[in-house]
C-alpha cells in the first residue's frame, strides 16, 4: 500500500527534478558546451580548405579528411566535457536531496503521512537518475544534430554508471550530513588527490585508499566511449568493465548505506 502510494508520487518527483535540477543542468551544459566548443571549431580547417597531399593519400578525399578531423575533435571534446557534466549533473541532482528537507522542515508534513523516509528518498534517487539520463540523452541529441552524432548505448551506459558513483556518494552524504554538496566536492577532490599521490605506493596504508572512490580513473571510462573508432564501430570491447563495475559498486554501496542511515536516523534536527 505504502509502496504504491510512494510509487505514484514518482511522477511528482520527476517533475521536481526536471523543473528544479534538470533545467539548470541543461543551461550549464549548453553554456559550458558552447564556450568550450566554439573556439575549437573556429580553429578547425573548413571542408573546402586545402588539404595536405599525404592526408589526401591516406584518406582518399578531402571530405574524408574533414570527417576524420571532426571525429578526432569530437572524441577529444566529448571526453573532456563528459567528466565535468556527469559530476555537475550528479551534484545538481543530489544537492540537498535529504538535507534540504531536514534543514527547512519540509519533512514534517511529508512523514506524518504513512510514508517511510527511506522509501521516499530511495525512490527520489532513482527518479533523479532517470531524469538525469533523459537530460543527457537530450543534450547528446542536440550535440549530435549540431556537431557530431555521439549517442550510443555504451556512452549512455558509462554516463549512467558514473552518475551512480557520484550520486551514490552524494546521497549518503545528504542523508548523513547537512552540507552535502560541499562534502561531495571535498570527497571528490580528496579521493582524486590521494589516489594520484599514493595509489602506486606499496605500503600497507595505501590499501586504505580502496575505501575511497577511484575517481582518478574516471577519465578512462569516458575515453573508452568518446574514442572515435569505438563510436564508429559501436563495439563494447574497449570499455573497461572492471573499472565500471568498481564505480557502480561503490555508488550502489553508498546508496544502500544512505538508505540505512535514513532507516535509523531521526529526521528532526535539534
Amino acid at each position: 500500500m505504502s509502496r504504491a502510494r510512494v510509487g505514484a508520487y514518482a511522477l511528482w518527483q520527476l517533475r521536481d527534478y526536471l523543473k528544479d535540477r534538470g533545467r539548470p543542468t541543461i543551461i550549464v551544459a549548453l553554456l559550458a558546451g558552447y564556450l568550450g566548443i566554439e573556439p575549437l571549431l573556429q580553429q578547425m580547417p573548413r571542408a573546402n580548405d586545402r588539404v595536405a597531399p599525404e592526408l589526401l593519400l591516406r584518406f582518399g578525399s578531402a571530405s574524408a579528411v574533414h570527417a576524420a578531423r571532426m571525429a578526432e575533435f569530437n572524441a577529444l571534446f566529448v571526453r573532456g566535457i563528459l567528466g565535468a557534466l556527469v559530476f555537475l549533473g550528479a551534484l545538481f541532482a543530489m544537492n540537498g536531496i535529504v538535507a534540504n528537507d531536514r534543514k527547512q522542515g519540509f519533512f514534517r508534513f511529508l512523514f506524518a503521512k504513512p510514508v517511510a523516509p527511506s522509501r521516499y528518498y530511495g525512490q527520489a534517487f532513482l527518479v533523479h537518475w532517470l531524469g538525469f539520463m533523459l537530460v543527457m540523452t537530450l543534450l547528446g541529441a542536440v550535440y549530435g544534430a549540431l556537431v557530431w552524432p555521439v549517442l550510443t548505448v555504451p556512452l549512455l551506459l558509462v554516463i549512467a554508471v558514473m552518475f551512480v558513483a557520484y550520486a551514490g556518494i552524494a546521497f549518503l552524504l545528504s542523508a548523513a550530513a547537512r552540507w552535502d554538496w560541499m562534502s561531495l566536492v571535498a570527497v571528490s577532490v580528496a579521493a582524486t588527490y590521494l589516489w594520484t599521490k599514493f595509489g602506486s605506493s606499496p605500503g600497507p596504508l595505501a590499501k586504505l585508499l580502496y575505501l575511497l572512490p577511484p575517481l582518478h580513473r574516471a577519465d578512462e571510462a569516458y575515453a573508452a566511449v568518446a574514442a572515435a573508432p569505438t563510436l564508429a564501430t559501436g563495439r563494447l570491447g574497449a570499455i573497461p568493465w572492471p573499472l565500471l563495475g568498481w564505480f557502480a559498486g561503490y555508488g550502489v554501496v553508498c546508496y544502500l548505506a544512505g538508505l540505512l542511515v535514513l532507516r535509523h536516523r531521526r529526521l528532526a534536527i535539534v
Partner: protein
Amino acid sequence: MIAFDQVGKRYRTLWGREVLALEDFSVELRAGEVFGLAGPNGAGKSTLISLLLGYLGPSHGTIRIDGQDPRRYVESHGISYLSELVSIPPAWRAEEALKRYALLAGVPASSRDARVEQVIEWMGLSEHRAKRVKQLSKGNLQRLGLAQALLVEERVIVLDEPTHGLDPVWTQRFREVVTALRREDRVILIASHNLDELERLADRVAIIDHGRLQRVVDVRRASAPDRGDRTPYRIALSRGAELVPAVFPRARMVGQGEHELDGLTLDELNAGLAALLARGALIAMVYPVHSMLEQQFREAVGVGEKRT
C-alpha cells in the same frame, strides 16, 4: 491510546553542552479526548510532539501509540499533523501541495480531487489555490497547513499552535473544526500558548515547564473554583462603584466603575457582594481575573516568582 512513560530527551549542542529538553514525562492520552499541552516558550512542547511523531528518539523512557513505536505507527497509519511552523516548499502552489499530500496520505485516486476540493472549501482557500506557498499570507499559510492535516481523518490528530496567525473569525472556525473532529476512537492533541483556547477545547491540559510535567489539569472539572481557593476577581458596577473600597479594602480601581479584588475565597466574595447589594449598589459583572486554567498555569510555572 497514546502513552508516554518516563520519557526524557537530552541532546548536546555543537559545543558539547548538554541540554535537557524533556525529563520523566509520563501521561496517557485516552481515545475520545482532546488533550491540551501548555507551557512557556522552550518548555518542551515541540520536543514532545517531535518525539510523538518519531522525528526524534527519546533519550530514555518509551512512547507507544496503540502499543506501537511512534515511527512504526506513523508509517503504517499516518497522523494528522500541523506543525508550529508551516514548512511547505515555497514554489509549490496551494492546490498542488494538497494534491501531493493527499496522494502520500493515501486518499484514493477516485476521491482525491474531491477531497482536496473539500478541504480547500472548508479552509476558505478557494481564491488562493493557484498561489505559490511563498505568496500566501501568514493566516492563509496556517490554513493551508491545517488543510493538509485534515485531508485524511486519522485516529491521531496533533496540532501545534494551530491558531497562530489566524484572525478571530478563523480562530472561531478552528474551534468548530476541532469540535467536529471529536470522535470516540480518536485523540486530538493541541499544543498552544493560548490558554483560553485550550480551556474551551480540551478535556485535560498538561502544563509543562523546563522540560518537566508540572500538572495535568482536568479542565471540565476545574471550571469553577473550590470553596477555599483564593482567586482574584474583577467587579463592575453600574451604580455604587464608590462603595467598593469600603467593602473590599484592598480593591484597586482598574477602569470606569471597575475594580480588581485581590485573592478572595468564595465565602468572602459572596459576603462582600451581599454587603454591596444591601447598600444599594447595582452589580453588572463579576468574573475571575484569570480563568481556572490560567490560574493553574500561573501556579505551575511560577508566574510572578523569579524564574531561573
